[in-house]
């Protein structure tokens, strides 16, 4: 080793070769390795999905289909909920759990119905999700079911470090369960407590699996990733109503295309007193609470 002050700045051949090799490996991985579902071209998506269909069908001993239906143009989904009609029966919660293959043990529920005091109004500090009376509605209480609001200015998609969650063109905020690293930053950022984490391996009893799945929706999730309401993407992209809406006995839930002037959603926005939860946070939810009467 020379004893001079200055160090040689020439790049040795070995250094160059190792850097070049690393770059090549990186390129190779990006070209051929696992990618986010958001970026996979349609034809390769079909391949991946067919593989899942085979795996799930085997695992659940029934014919499982995983849809890859994309968003319809000219559609922006929104949901509305009539606070004058919800009586807190939680049938929507159950229907959602069944339709979307949510874990029964540990219990995962995408919808949380909050019972609030009529005099206090919408006041989360006093909300109670654990009400358990013999009959609903209870006197002086009203009910506010909360799930993912599919915000137009979603804080969750903003903070995900790996881009595992994004808003689809039809307005549904989705999660790529295979890309999520489980850091739970989105859960800290969500003002509505809408996101749920699989703290352990989820389990759905064999006979209760819904075999009609969507690649961004109700397909089985592994432990260690986040999940949430997808506006029943497997149903709504096929033109049907979400399961919670169909289960609601009082007809409190409404759903449709915000951009369609004939939709129920637009009727509500034009004719009813609509409120948004935590509106001051400027998340611009696509879940409109209103008073039908």
């Amino acid at each position: 080793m020379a004893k001079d002050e200055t160090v040689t700045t020439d790049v040795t051949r070995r250094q160059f070769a190792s850097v070049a090799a690393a770059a090549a490996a990186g390129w190779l991985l990006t070209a051929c390795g696992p990618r986010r579902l958001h970026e996979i071209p349609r034809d390769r998506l079909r391949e991946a999905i067919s593989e899942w269909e085979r795996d799930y069908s085997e695992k659940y001993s029934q014919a499982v289909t995983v849809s890859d239906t994309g968003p319809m143009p000219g559609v922006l989904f929104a949901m509305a909920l009539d606070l004058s009609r919800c009586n807190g029966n939680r049938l929507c919660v159950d229907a959602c759990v069944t339709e979307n293959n949510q874990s029964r043990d540990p219990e995962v529920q995408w919808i949380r119905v909050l019972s609030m005091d009529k005099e206090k109004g919408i006041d989360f500090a006093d909300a109670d999700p654990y009400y358990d009376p013999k009959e609903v509605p209870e006197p002086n209480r009203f009910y506010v079911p909360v799930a993912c609001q599919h915000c137009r200015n979603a804080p969750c998609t903003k903070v995900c470090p790996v881009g595992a969650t994004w808003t689809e063109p039809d307005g549904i905020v989705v999660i790529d369960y295979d890309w999520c690293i489980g850091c739970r930053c989105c859960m800290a950022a969500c003002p509505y407590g809408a996101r749920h984490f699989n703290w352990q391996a989820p389990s759905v009893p064999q006979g209760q699996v819904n075999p009609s799945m969507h690649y961004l929706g109700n397909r089985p999730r592994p432990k260690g990733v986040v999940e949430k309401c997808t506006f029943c993407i497997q149903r709504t992209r096929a033109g049907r109503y979400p399961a919670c809406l169909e289960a609601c006995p009082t007809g409190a839930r409404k759903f449709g295309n915000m951009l369609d002037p004939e939709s129920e959603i637009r009727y509500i926005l034009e004719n009813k007193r609509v409120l948004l939860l935590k509106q001051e946070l400027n998340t611009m939810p696509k879940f409109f609470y209103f008073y039908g009467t």
Partner: protein
Amino acid sequence: MHRTVIPLSCAVAALAAWGCGRVGVDRVATTESHQAMTAIVPPRASAAVQLRVEVPPPPFSEGVFPCSECHNETDLPPNRTRRPLVDAHDEIVLKHDEENRWCLDCHDTNNRDRLHLASGETVAFEESYRICGQCHGEKYRDWRAGVHGRRIGEWNGAKQYLLCVHCHSPHQPRFKSLEPRPAPRRPMRPAR
């Protein structure tokens, strides 16, 4: 991303609406396997097309329809006197503006197989919502738009409406209390 998608979608939607007609309004529903009666629901004021949708049959009590089997001129001539019923239909307790009205204010006196409006025009049981709409105009408008009451089907296609009376008994319309599903489990620390 959002900032380009939404205006773009609006533009696309506007073009589609202008070019291809409104989405889903004038589709005729296909009949399903159960015996569904078709109700003609007058559409929202803006639509020019009649919306035909399916409605399940009115929820008659077992064996009660057609009423004219008993209520005809020969067997049971009509009695317009307002009174509590004791001989039959006494299980019906009216809790629907009972201070001012009674049975024959909705049930047609001469043809018991039909109801009647305030004008005297008779109305089939399958269109009983027209009666409800006389007093409950706002609810009726909302129901027509699909905003009041339960619907199933497709958000941009065929929808199944229910008649008012499917959820609200015409004699005691107040929506009954329900037993709620169980409360969610509270978060618990692990055992150790």
